[in-house]
Every structure is written in structure tokens, then in C-alpha cells.
């Protein structure tokens, strides 16, 4: 174990790149999926189509998706973020739509009867009730993306995957272990902290998916 202690700044830089890739992608996907999620939740036909399409698209392997983006976007950080955003969209849209769909119609009727406007109802009633589902979606998206983002290093997007690829090219097991275990630790930390947040957001007795 000599490479890791000697290269702490390099590892931290890769970690920072990795986190940035994941954060930017999940944040962009979040904004888009809030619109699609709210829109499709009250339209059963649209909801069914959204669930089917996102399920199928999520199955596309990351190497294939990044490769398919190269003819249009080239290589580097931009196509990596586009690809990663697409993956988190698949997860977030499903969870957000399911969260808004799970709200009992009586609650919405009561809000309408009390004279809530559409926008106020969304902000004060629907959003808080759907919140545990939304956070669950963000958690699954973040954890999945931390793993998938390692492949993005192959199209020159940097991150912890770059260390793993260096390890493969140079036959240097320590780099492979360092990159792999750090990615795994990152995913476990994200999973743990977002699970706690999810529990805090859940009203008593309610169970998220």
C-alpha cells in the first residue's frame, strides 16, 4: 500500500469530480422529473406509459448509452452528465409520480373544498405528502449513479473511475482497489444518510415504497 498515501490529493480531486458529476446530474434530473411526475400522476394512461418507458430505458447498459451519445456530443464531461441525467430521470420520474399518485383523492377534494388554489394545493398538501417517495427516489438515483459514474471515466469525464481504468491499464491492483472501495464507501454513505432523511420526512405510520 504505497500508492494511496502518496496520492491523497489526486484521490481527493477524483472524488470531487465524481461527486460533481453525480450532483449535477441528479439535480438536473430532479427538476425535469418534478414536472413530468406531477403531470403524469393524475393521468393514468400517461403514468402507465411513463412507467413502461422508464423501466425499459433504465435497462440500457451504461457503456452502450455513453457510446450512443458520442456521435452527437463527443466525449468529456458534457455527454457524461447527459447520460447520467438520463439514468436518474428514469428512477426519479417513477418515484415522484408514484408519490403524487399515492395521495388519497379525499385529501385533494378536502383541499379544493377549503378553497385552495391549484398551486397552493400542490405546495402545501401534495408536496409534503409525496416527500418521502421523492427522497426515496433521490436516494436510489444517487446510489445508482455513484456506481454508473465510474464508467463515465472511459469517455474522459474523470472521477473515481479514472483511477480504476488506470489500474487496469497499468496492471496496478492497488489503484483498482482504491477506486472501487472508495466508490462503494461513497454509495454506502449516501444510502445511509438519505435513508435517515427519508425516515425524518415520513409522517407517523406511513410507509414509503
Amino acid at each position, binding site marked *: 500500500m504505497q500508492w494511496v498515501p502518496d496520492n491523497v490529493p489526486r484521490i481527493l480531486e477524483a472524488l470531487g469530480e465524481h461527486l460533481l458529476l453525480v450532483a449535477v446530474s441528479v439535480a438536473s434530473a430532479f427538476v425535469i422529473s418534478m414536472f413530468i411526475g406531477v403531470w403524469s400522476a393524475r393521468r393514468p394512461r400517461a403514468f402507465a406509459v411513463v412507467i413502461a418507458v422508464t423501466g425499459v430505458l433504465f435497462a*440500457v447498459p451504461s*457503456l452502450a*448509452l455513453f*457510446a*450512443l451519445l458520442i456521435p452527437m456530443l463527443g466525449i468529456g464531461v458534457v455527454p457524461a452528465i447527459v447520460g447520467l441525467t438520463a439514468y436518474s430521470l428514469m428512477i426519479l420520474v417513477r418515484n415522484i409520480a408514484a408519490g403524487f399518485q399515492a395521495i388519497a383523492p379525499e385529501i385533494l377534494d378536502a383541499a379544493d373544498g377549503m378553497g385552495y388554489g391549484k398551486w397552493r394545493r400542490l405546495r402545501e398538501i401534495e408536496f409534503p405528502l409525496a416527500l418521502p417517495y421523492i427522497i426515496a427516489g433521490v436516494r436510489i438515483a444517487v446510489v445508482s449513479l455513484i*456506481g454508473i459514474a465510474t*464508467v463515465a471515466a472511459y469517455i474522459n469525464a474523470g472521477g473515481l473511475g479514472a483511477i480504476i481504468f488506470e489500474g487496469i491499464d497499468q496492471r496496478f491492483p492497488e489503484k483498482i482497489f482504491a477506486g472501487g472501495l472508495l*466508490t*462503494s464507501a461513497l454509495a454506502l454513505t449516501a444510502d445511509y444518510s438519505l435513508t435517515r432523511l427519508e425516515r425524518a420526512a415520513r409522517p407517523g405510520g406511513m410507509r414509503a415504497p
Partner: protein
Amino acid sequence: MILTQAFEWIFANWETFLGALEQHLLMCAVSLGIAIAISVPLGVTIARSPLASFLAINFAGALRTIPSLAILAIALPILGIGLVPSVVALIVLAVPPILLNTCIGVREIDPGVVDASVGMGMTRMQRVSRIELPLALPAIIAGIKTASIQVIGGAALASFIGGGGLGDFVTAGIALMDMSRLLVGAVPIALLAILAEILLSLLQRALSMPDNSSSRDAR
């Protein structure tokens, strides 16, 4: 047009393409088969022990956070280059989701049903084959679906450790910046994964009974 060039390349190099496709499918099928043979019996066995299933569920959960790329990469220094290291790595990828879902599927069976089977004088083997496996089947299929998607995606990365398959066209395409070659690899890989997802979803739907809520996607 890149797509027509990709088709031309496939027809001009039919043997090479077919060889890579065959290698890819072989890798997926062998590793999935072995993973099923390991995980289903193991999952059924440990499901009745709270401690063993707690340990297995958490171990499998932690194993799933290691990225596919790292699992394949780690196989390289340990097992060397080629097809066998790739298959071993893909088995490691496929075991957790199947084990997890088998274990959870068996645990979620109504204890009354199991009690009734004991009361009817069924032996342990009869109970497993006639009660536990059929009732846990939708959950097991859901696990196999998740594992198949993981394995098909992982097999694309096997190219990095000399495992061959369709990933070779993608890596060659990126190295040469040859867009049509890139598509020769990427499009079949994507179609293969989509096909697996659709077929296994249909199978899962056909198997789950209307009031059976135990099918759970571990993804």
C-alpha cells in the same frame, strides 16, 4: 449516415460480429446460470434463519454498492485476463439480487401456509419444492431480471479485462474514433438489455397472482 455504415461493417465482417455476439451471450448465460444455481438454494436454506438471512441481506446489499466496473477490474489482478475472470466477476454481480429476492420472497410467505404444510405431514424437501419455491417464484424472477440487466451491462465492460464480447467494438470504436464501429457494439448491447427486461417483465407478470404482493424489484 453512420447507421448504414455500421450495417455495412456488420455484413462485411459477419464472422467477427457473430463471434463477438456468441461470446457475449455465452458469458451472460453461463454466469447467470451459475449464479441462479448458487443463490436460489442458498436463499431458500437461509431464509428460515433470522440471523443468517440478516447477514446475507446486508452482505448482498453492501456487495451491490461496489460498481460493476470495479468488480470486473478486481478480477484482473486475481484471475488474470480472458473469459474465465469475466465470468467469475459476472457471477459476483448476479448473486446478490437473486439471493436477496429469494430470501425475501420465502420470508414473506404467510406462516399459516407453512404451518399447514407441516400439519399435512410434508417433509422439508416437499415443503421447499411444493410450497416455498412456487410461492416465492415471482420474487425470484424479479431478482433474476435485475441480475440479467446487471450481467448484460457488465458483460459489455468485460472487454476492458480481455473478456471479449460486443464491448470490443465499443472500445475499438472509441480508440479509433470510428462512430460506425461504436454503434456496431452499442446498439446490439442496448437491444439485448431491453429485450431481457421486456421478456422477464412479461414472465414476472404472468407468474404473479393478483393478490400476491411478494414480487419485489430489488433494484
